[in-house]
């Protein structure tokens, strides 16, 4: 395997990922702004984006922290948002499982929605490619996305400080969540899951420590899975 074809797979991945830059930038910017408005110092805003690298869960943690939820509830809710990534990990293992432990750790750190979706689609379409070529493609896909996630969080945090406090930012976060969820409502099972989540979360809103939401999420997940099983 010549290194030039490996390199070409890296650049192929990089080009494929470029359109996603348009999605990543505003979200990172928004996280920086909202986290700063919520009162986090720059170091902690950046800590979130660099150590967690998972937008939806960062926003979820921020929302629960604004409600002063107990630390364990913040963690449980934010991690629940990320559980889907176990599925990504399982799906990518047949393709990249042959890498060294250190490389697999690196791949895991960069395994977010966009990199998973693009790499998995490419690997499934051309399974004959070598491990080196697949790894190069994965590295190419993450190259424009991860650094921009960090950079635009930073810009957002700096800009957030300049935004006057009387501009109502409280509802930007709910809008961001809805914008992430609505395109994911692909099937009856997804819609039923969302509806169950809403109804039970509202019905259990009185339950302390935001535990009503966790109960709602577990039941909603079971509803979605059950509908999928029956329709299969």
């Amino acid at each position, binding site marked *: 395997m010549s290194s030039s074809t490996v390199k070409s797979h890296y650049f192929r991945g990089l080009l494929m990922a470029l359109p996603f830059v348009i999605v990543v930038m505003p979200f990172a910017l928004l996280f920086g702004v909202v986290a700063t408005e919520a009162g986090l110092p720059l170091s902690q805003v950046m800590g979130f984006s660099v150590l967690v690298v998972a937008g939806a869960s960062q926003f*979820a943690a921020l929302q629960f*922290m604004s409600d002063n939820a107990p630390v364990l509830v913040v963690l449980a809710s934010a991690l629940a948002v990320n559980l889907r990534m176990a599925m990504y*990990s399982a799906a990518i293992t047949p393709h990249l499982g042959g890498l060294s432990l250190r490389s697999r750790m690196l791949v895991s750190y960069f395994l977010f929605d966009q990199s998973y979706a693009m790499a998995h689609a490419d690997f499934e379409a051309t399974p004959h490619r070598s491990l080196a070529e697949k790894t190069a493609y994965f590295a190419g896909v993450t190259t424009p996305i991860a650094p921009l996630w960090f950079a635009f969080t930073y810009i957002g945090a700096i800009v957030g400080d300049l935004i006057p406090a009387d501009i109502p930012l409280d*509802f930007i976060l709910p809008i961001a969540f809805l914008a992430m969820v609505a395109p994911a409502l692909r099937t009856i099972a997804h819609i039923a899951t*969302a509806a169950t*989540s809403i109804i039970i979360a509202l019905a259990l809103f009185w339950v302390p420590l935001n535990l009503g939401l966790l109960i709602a*999420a577990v039941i909603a*997940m079971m509803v979605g899975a059950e509908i999928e099983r029956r329709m299969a």
Partner: protein
Amino acid sequence: MNYTDAQIWGIIIALGIGTFLIRFSFLGLIGDRKLPDWVLRHLRYTPVAILPGLVAPLVLWPDATGGEVDPARLAAAATTVAVGYLTKGVVRAMLSGVAVLYGVQYLLG
């Protein structure tokens, strides 16, 4: 927000480690063994199961209005969901929602 600095760093680090371990799970530890179908089926619905329930009270009873239902927020939420559902565009949905939020707020004074 009412946490000590140490608590916030604790949240950030624990969330970082937890998220890493979720991503590392199969790639690192379980390898090529197949997940049972029922587990995969449940995992597919995790974001759709938690985010709508998280947002619903914020849409209906926003803190900023003292828990009163607010037409601007309702209209913005409905627009975001409609645009996101119909066009599948995340950023498009967000921008439409923000435009409606500020538009209706401006019109109602």
